[in-house]
């Protein structure tokens, strides 16, 4: 099994300034595309993020939101 591999990168590592710039671009995009609350969740560390998503999904389901997808035989 070829786990945890990604293609080797020939690029120089991102500088701290580039990292900051990408983080800002990412944050701005998430706020614009998903809303501020979801952006905040997306920027949490993995464990907290999964817990927040679980809480959000379970809350929606408990209020009757149907998150099931139809079985179509072919998936987009």
């Amino acid at each position, binding site marked *: *099994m*070829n*786990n*945890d*591999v*990604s*293609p080797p*990168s020939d*690029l120089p*590592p*991102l500088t701290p300034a*580039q*990292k900051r*710039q*990408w*983080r800002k*671009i*990412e944050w701005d*995009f*998430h706020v614009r*595309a*998903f809303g501020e609350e*979801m952006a905040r*969740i*997306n*920027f949490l560390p*993995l464990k907290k*993020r*999964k*817990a*927040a*998503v*679980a809480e*959000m*999904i*379970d809350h*929606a*389901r*408990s209020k009757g939101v*149907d*998150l*099931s*997808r139809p*079985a*179509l*035989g*072919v*998936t*987009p």
Partner: protein
Amino acid sequence: MIPYAELEKFFCDLVAKAQGRGIPCAITSGMACVHFGVAATTKDCDVLCNVEKSDDFRELIAETKLRGLLPNYRGNISPPLDARWMRGGWTSHFTWKTAPEESCLDIFGIAPRGSSAWEDEIFGLYASRHTVAEMKRTNRDKDWPYINALGIKLLKANDLRGCLHLYDADALSNAVATNPPPSWMLEARPSLRLALAGDERLADAIHAETVFWHRLDACRIQLYERALRPYVSAVRKVIARRAMPLAESHEIRMQCAERHLLPSPVAVHGFAQLVADAREVTSRRVHPDLMEWLPNGLSHFIGLS
């Protein structure tokens, strides 16, 4: 209601067990997006499974209980989980009839729109960001923000393929200004040349690309839906509403599929023809000058036969 955390653990355990048995497989779509930091509201799971290991994975699914319940195929519409049909791009649907909602699992053998073998790049239990982003180029508007978000994640991880997934003109311009894309990437996505040149047509070209991908997916789905009808009708006649174990249901589906289900509707239609169909529809919706900036699309049928 089964809490999401329990469902996620259940599907992760299933994939881990499969990998432990030597079955290359990976969680993709919504659950993978959540893992990668782009929250999606899904409770069902999509898994990519190596085509040649379809039988092994089906046997594992058949013996895996969720809250004491064994699974089955979902409705009469699901194609069999078998290498012949998985290789042709079909998806198999499974369900555990938990209450009040069923818990569902979709299995792909081939990643739709994949330009490289998904098996070459697996991150633990998950397909790579690149694979997930390509799979998200659907005809559903709701999927597109996820592609862009995954593209940014790739670039943050110093993976230049992120440029292939940015559909936000500003972010794309910024990305290519920092690291000019290699020639293979410019060929794969011609609109990157506009980004490099700071051409003001970039945003329109990106819009044309999204129209193209929407149409390509819609044309693809049409082929599968048409091919599915006689099979569903045959399965419905034999199974009706009878409850039966997964193994028995599988045998019936195999018999029906052998007679009524084309293994690969896209291959029969022709990959080039499918791309031409999508381009034709796109040409009626975007300015003619933008057509030259569309991707050719032909390299996005990897593994499909």
